[in-house]
């Protein structure tokens, strides 16, 4: 650590400011979701669950949650699987065109979501597939696989390079080695990737907005409500969404940190 204690306090204050900036909107949304006043400002009104009731007695909102759930779970499964395959291929093999292969797998996050949404919409509409749940799933998998791939790849980087050879050496076929060694080793990363991709999918609004048509996901509903007047239902919906997402993310991170530090061997 670098010395100089006097103005360290300033630094810490700055960091606190950044954190306040990041978390304040979330906090206020949460607080105001229970506020009785229609327009959120201070002073606060009284505590109420009115907005929650209002939001969740709306069939559209329930539908949206249902769709979001289906989509994010499906996406999580597929993206994690694809991400795992890619990460393992990258780890194990060296082949012609590998850089191109990697670039392709990791490129999606660099394309603005609006454009992805438009592209997916255009293509799917052309082949008559737009507006279906499966279209959202497909689009989200494209977006989320890179994250899954990165997480699993990081975990594989920690593996003892001889672990696979040791399994073969002890009589395990390639397929068995995958089942008994690689997958168990990557388990924390796989779970983590699953949770993360589910969260990303659950929260993604731009592409979903373009592609979902009548099968709206929750973020799409939020977008639509946003376009109207200030509607406090958003706070209610948003808080629920936020709690869901954050639970998933926290789960992902904790599982990864806990399991991987406990079970990583670095030789001796």
């Amino acid at each position, binding site marked *: 650590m670098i010395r100089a204690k006097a103005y360290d306090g300033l630094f810490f204050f700055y960091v606190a400011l950044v954190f306040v900036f990041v978390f304040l909107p979330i906090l206020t949304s949460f607080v105001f979701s229970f506020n009785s006043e229609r327009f959120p400002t201070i002073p606060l009104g009284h505590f109420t669950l009115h907005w929650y009731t209002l939001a969740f007695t709306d069939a559209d909102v329930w539908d949206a949650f249902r769709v979001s759930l289906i989509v994010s779970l499906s996406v999580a499964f597929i993206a994690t699987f694809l991400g795992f395959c890619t990460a393992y291929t990258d780890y194990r093999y060296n082949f012609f065109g590998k850089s191109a292969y990697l670039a392709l797998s990791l490129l999606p996050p660099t394309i603005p979501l609006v454009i992805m949404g438009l592209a997916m919409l255009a293509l799917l509409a052309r082949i008559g597939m737009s507006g279906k749940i499966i279209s959202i799933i497909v689009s989200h998998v494209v977006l989320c696989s890179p994250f899954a791939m990165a997480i699993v790849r990081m975990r594989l980087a920690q593996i003892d390079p001889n672990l696979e050879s040791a399994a073969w050496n002890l009589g395990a076929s390639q397929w068995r080695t995958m089942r008994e060694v690689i997958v168990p080793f990557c388990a924390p990363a796989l779970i983590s990737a699953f949770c993360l991709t589910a969260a990303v999918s659950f929260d993604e609004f731009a592409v979903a907005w373009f592609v979902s048509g009548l099968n709206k996901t929750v973020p799409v509903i939020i977008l639509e409500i946003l376009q109207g007047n200030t509607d406090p239902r958003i706070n209610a919906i948003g808080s629920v969404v936020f709690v869901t*997402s954050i639970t998933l993310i926290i789960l992902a991170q904790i599982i990864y940190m806990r399991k991987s530090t406990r079970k990583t061997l670095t030789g001796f």
Partner: protein
Amino acid sequence: MPIVVWQLVFFVFPLLFLLLMSFWLVKNYRMVPGFDSVNWIKMYGKGYFWDGYWRTLGYAGITTVITSVLAFPCAFTLAFKVSPTVRRWAMFFLIVPFFTSYLVRIFSWQIFLNDNGIINVLLGLVGLGPFSMLNTFFGTVVGYLTLCLPLAVVLQLISLSNVDRRLIEAAHNLGCGSFRTVFAVIIPLAKIGIIVAAVFCFILSFGDFVSPYYLGGSKPPTLSILIIDTTKSGQQWPRAAVVAITMIVTLFTIMFTAIALAYRRR
């Protein structure tokens, strides 16, 4: 290697299709396949397109600079002045919001920045304001920051934590003051991470429509808003495709330039 197939079909192909589509025509609200560069000519001829282009470019550029500058002291503190445990928890808490409810946070900012919103009320208590913050560039920047700042901090942090402490000590040992060391030694060493963070900021702010739309007043429009307008009202998908392709090309150019610069002279 199923992922290659998937990516090819669902990622590359749609984008290629977009390119193709930009040459199609729209007659009576329906698209007609063809090869006509009229969309390109018309779009590039429109003043509002170029306005939007340079504006978006400028917004993204400014945001990148602002975000990078604001992120640095935070990343620096977390890299050098706290214990590893604190650092890990900080990273954890910074990554969390990145993936959650960008929309809701923007909505909250709407409330905050509103003329009758919390900030103005508080300022009113001390006799200041009210300041018009919504529907201004300021609002847009606040939105972009919400999107980019955590990521910038995390990326810069990773790079800064990997700086070899001994080099810093060597610099001090040779008489370089703490402040100067930051610019003379630390930043050059963490150059890659800082540039990567900046590139991501740029990409995100360049393509985002939520912030300029909901906090910036949506007029005059950025390219992303232009796409949405062109698509949702008017069904002019080919025109939207033109905007989209232009955006992609611009982004790739900037990305490659930045990375080339970053890896030059290693």
